């Protein structure tokens, strides 16, 4: 029972990332009709926003310490971050410690801007082209973006640790009556899960309870009619591209402490997120979220020793297996609507 709960929990945080990326993908597909293979790159750029903020906060000046030597035997250059010199050692170190949460403030405008530039600069030219063309151009863009990041940040993973206060794990099992160490769970993974729930809730609320959201939903249902009513739906859809970009970016910012960001992380998530979108139902926002969590949990179960010894390799194919089964039994996905991508 405890192992079951543990794997469900594990699946939730993985599912959170899938759900956030798939939500953005579905937003873009639902509004602009574009299959955006560069969406994983937006997730990666978000994570590197956190790396950038961390590096910015760690900008330092050097002082020579004659008492210590560097690796060549010269007097050691000691680096002191400017923030520690401006705000004092304790507050300065505290600001650096909270660089990941602080990066959210930086990432939102950056990601919205990246989304705008991507949509206005490149993707809008492919609206009337085949889906295959859209996939090729966005996939190419993803490769370019990851190579640019690699050029500036290198190929190795870069640590973006969570704040000290949120480091370590909690014994959730003991809270519900299990023995000690039965269900240990890292605090930051819980934070990530609740953060994802907050973002998903925010996006749904924005679409459901604002006039802007109402127009966007109307445009998703019937773009032409909304246009005929004199509403500039293209501008709103561009804004939604920015929102989707910010959602992917925020998912990336907060993911950094779970696994150190590297230039390739977007590609690792991209294919799985597309499977999530297809399983959830093309164009269905609730479907994307539901499928994200569902597949995250299934993947987690498939990685247990029991599963891998019973069916070797199941951990690597489970998501695709489930996708095949769902598409065979429900061709439109879990919550797909009739008419979407069926013309």
């Amino acid at each position, binding site marked *: 029972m*405890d*192992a079951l709960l*543990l*794997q469900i*929990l*594990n*699946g939730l*945080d*993985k599912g959170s990332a899938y759900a956030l990326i798939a939500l953005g993908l579905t937003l873009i597909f639902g509004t602009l009709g574009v299959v955006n293979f560069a969406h994983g790159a937006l997730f990666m750029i978000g994570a590197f926003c956190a790396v950038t903020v961390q590096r910015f906060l760690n900008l330092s000046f050097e002082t020579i310490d004659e008492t*210590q030597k*560097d*690796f*060549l035997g010269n007097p*050691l250059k000691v680096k002191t971050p400017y923030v520690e010199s401006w705000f004092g050692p304790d507050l300065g170190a505290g600001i650096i410690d909270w660089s990941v949460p602080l990066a959210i403030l930086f990432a939102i405008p950056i990601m919205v801007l990246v989304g705008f530039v991507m949509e206005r600069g490149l993707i809008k030219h492919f609206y009337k082209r085949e889906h295959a063309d859209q996939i090729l151009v966005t996939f190419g863009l993803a490769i370019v973006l990851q190579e640019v990041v*690699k050029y500036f940040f*290198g*190929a*190795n*993973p*870069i*640590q973006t*640790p969570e704040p000290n206060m949120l*480091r*370590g*794990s909690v014994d959730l099992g003991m809270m519900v009556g299990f023995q000690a*160490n*039965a269900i*240990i*769970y*890292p605090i*930051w*993974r819980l934070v990530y899960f609740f953060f994802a729930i907050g973002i998903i809730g925010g996006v749904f609320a924005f679409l459901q309870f604002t006039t802007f959201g109402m127009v966007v939903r109307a445009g998703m249902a019937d773009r032409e009619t909304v246009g005929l009513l004199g509403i500039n739906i293209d501008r709103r859809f561009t804004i939604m591209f920015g929102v989707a970009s910010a959602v992917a970016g925020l998912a990336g910012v907060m993911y950094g*402490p*779970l*696994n*150190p960001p*590297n230039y*390739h*992380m977007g590609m*690792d998530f991209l294919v799985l997120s597309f499977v999530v979108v297809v399983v959830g139902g093309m164009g269905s926002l609730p479907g994307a979220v539901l499928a994200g969590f569902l597949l995250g949990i299934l*993947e*987690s179960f498939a*990685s*247990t*020793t029991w599963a*891998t010894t019973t069916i070797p390799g199941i*951990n*690597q194919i489970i998501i695709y297996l489930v996708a095949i089964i769902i598409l065979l039994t429900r061709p439109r996905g879990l919550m797909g609507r009739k008419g979407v991508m069926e013309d």
Partner: protein
Amino acid sequence: MSKNDVTRRGVLKTGAIAGAGVALPTIFTASSAAAYMNEPTGGSVTLGFNVPQTGPYADEGADELRAYELAVEHLNGGGDGGMLGTFSSKALKGNGILGKKVEFVTGDTQTKSDAARASAKSMIEKDGAIMITGGSSSGVAIAVQGLCQEAGVIFMAGLTHSNDTTGKDKKANGFRHFFNAYMSGAALAPVLAARYGNDRKAYHLTADYTWGWTQEESIKAATEALGWETVNAVKTPLAATDFSSYIAPVLNSGADVLILNHYGGNMVNSLTNAVQFGLREKMVNGKQFEIVVPLYSRLMAKGAGENVKGILGSTNWHWSLQDEGSKAFVKSFGTKYGFPPSQAAHTVYCQTLLYADACERAGTFNPCGVGQALEGFEFDGLGNGPTLYRADDHQCFKDVLVVRGKENPTSEFDLLEVVEVTPAAQVTYPPDHPMFAGGELGTCNPGA
């Protein structure tokens, strides 16, 4: 009356044989004028540096390239000479190799076997490389070693740690300076026993490919010989990025040690996840829970950040060593590039010098002559103490370093501290050891 022996069948047969000969790639044939593949005829000789310039190990590849360029500079008499001055063999004079200026070409392995073979093939066929060296992965090293054997050039392996490279996949034209998984196990075991005791229960997470398998086999054998029990050994996909599902069951398994048979990004992520799950703060079976990373790399330790603190592992070489060879290399490399070299940089620099030295001693670039000069060669002054290039399997035997993540680093490079230098004798195994069984060196191929 003359008899004409030409038959339709004969013409077809002859044509087929001639066609097959023409179609055979030139890499597998040699010019009748040359005594061996890519025999240098002008005033220079070309070496092929085949390293990952793109892909996940690109940073290690970049460090390897820096070291290769430094080695070429030193071989041609430039710079401060680096380890040429400390190398026990004095055959190298700083005037190139056998009087020919050393030039080089580079290839990108992308850490993919097929790409690595293609780039090596191109360097041999198009650029006339007389020797291929490099790589940051055992899969790649084994693939390229096989190609070099077929092509008739020497392969001086870079960073490859799988037992198979000089075990079941060993080749007469291939040579490895880097240590291997068996040596890591043999070096680590006594240190683990001294620090963590003989009554431990280990849980292994293992990267599911050639290096991971041999690493798990080696460290399991070494720890079980200490009296440790192996509770579970789980293979993880090489492409895995999140290891939480694999780490979550560890605490419930009764294990009190987690051994991460992972390298590169796998190691960074699995270690980060393990620390997140609070494993190192737990007491299990009345003992402090411990994590072991059998193969360490400073570049990867940097990626894992604070998570490496206090964690034991092994490494081929570390820049903080105080022998004359290491100091000379660190000084050369550090002065030129501004930071200390990695173990990958060290091993490829050594391999380049060792190849050049073997050519000088053999008096030829012929792969068979060079191989013979390397076989059984004993040397010192290259940073690992007295070293033997064993003739039986072309594996170097030298001291192995047991290292630990440093608690209070003084700089961004000061991540590991050497806790033990395990003598070569302790990590030496017989050539017919079961972990290395199954392959034959074969005979050297000069490509002619």
